């Protein structure tokens, strides 16, 4: 294991961003120590290791921070397939995940309907992308869990919490059978099991977080 000795990850259980490197490390069978970073207050180790963003996750290899771009290194071999995988990971991270989050901000029925429409349009695209990327396999990565699987999969717990809190069935098995089946498959993976937060626990956390945020910001 020489090359991969002394690997530490600063992170925390609710964070989908911490999940990605954890799953990747598990898949690559690299032992690591998880240092729980509560973020409030931020530890000295965090501030020293990631002064730019002051955020988790931070990977430390032999005590030195490896700058994390939050993206695990599990890509296909062919450059074009890699480009497709990167494209969908960017879409999920930069666009779709925000749209899922935004449904919680909807105050009226109209806003809710508009937010839901955006989310479903995205899920439809991802259902199609699953075919293109997966080429008939069980994963976006084909026969193995890959880049896009990990990217989308890391949001699954939060997606389930959002479904619970908004009453909206996002990964609806009737509308999006491939993705619904994929989600179950992902959660059952060895590399994922110890890392995926339980929906109820995460829902509690989310409620507490939202209350804190409401208390911190002035009433509208």
């Amino acid at each position: 294991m020489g090359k991969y000795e002394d690997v530490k990850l600063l992170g925390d259980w609710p964070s989908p961003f911490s999940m990605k490197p954890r799953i990747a490390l598990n898949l690559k069978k690299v032992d690591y120590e998880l240092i729980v970073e509560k973020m409030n207050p931020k530890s000295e180790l965090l501030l020293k290791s990631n002064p730019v963003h002051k955020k988790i996750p931070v990977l430390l290899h032999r005590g030195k921070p490896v700058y994390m771009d939050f993206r695990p290194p599990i890509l296909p071999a062919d450059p074009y397939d890699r480009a497709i995988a990167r494209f969908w990971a960017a879409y999920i991270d930069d666009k779709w995940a925000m749209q899922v989050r935004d449904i919680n901000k909807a105050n009226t029925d109209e806003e809710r309907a508009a937010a839901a429409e955006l989310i479903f349009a995205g899920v439809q695209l991802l259902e199609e992308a699953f075919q293109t990327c997966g080429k008939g396999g069980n994963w976006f990565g084909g026969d193995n869990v890959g880049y896009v699987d990990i990217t989308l999969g890391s949001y699954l717990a939060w997606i389930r919490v959002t479904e619970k809190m908004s009453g909206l069935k996002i990964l609806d098995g009737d509308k999006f059978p491939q993705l619904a089946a994929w989600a179950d498959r992902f959660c059952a993976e060895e590399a994922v099991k110890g890392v995926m937060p339980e929906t109820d626990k995460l829902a509690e956390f989310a409620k507490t977080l939202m209350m804190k945020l409401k208390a911190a910001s002035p009433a509208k």
Partner: protein
Amino acid sequence: MDGGELKLYGMWASPYVLRVRLALKLKGLDYEYVEENLANKSAALLRLNPVHRKVPVLLHGDRPIAESAVILEYIDETWPRRFPLMPTDPRERAAVRFWCHFGSDKMFPSLIAILRSADEAQRAAAVGEVRENLKLLEDELREGFFRGRRFFGCEKLGFLDIVLGVDAHFLRGVTEVAEVDLGEDFPSFTSWLREFEAQPEVQEVLPPFDTIVDFLRGHRRRILAQA
């Protein structure tokens, strides 16, 4: 040519497009360029990038690739021996990708915020953010992973130079339009940018500075008119 003809759909003043053009230039790759009118996008563009409907889109043979960062990596991986853009060392690659994200998640939005600032308070806030971001970059160049280098890519332009360099060039344009004086506060950043802009490939690809300034000025006027 390997795999087919290259065609790039772009817009002359888009920094995202210019990154791709600079990469293609450094790699010595020929391509057909299609200028898009973003107010009236071509059917081809909409068909090739249905998800985002944006430029740049690179068409290699019959395969479309969208998102500038994705395109840059594709070009680098498809023609790995010509003028490699990404470093080989994994830690360095991670550092490059980190600072690329810094560019798109922090630097670029702070430039846009200056352009959009409608009053003195907004302008001051936006300028403050740009200064904070420049300080981080300055510290990185002086004491960080890339310290002591002529370029992020060492002696030659690399991936990160392309991404941050084009953005920084546009930052110069924005500070001119908004009359922001950054003073002598970021010497390492300034000297890196000067070296970047002096490279022949950069000079050949970037439009004349005053056309960028005019474009940004017009952009700002339109934004403020809508506010």
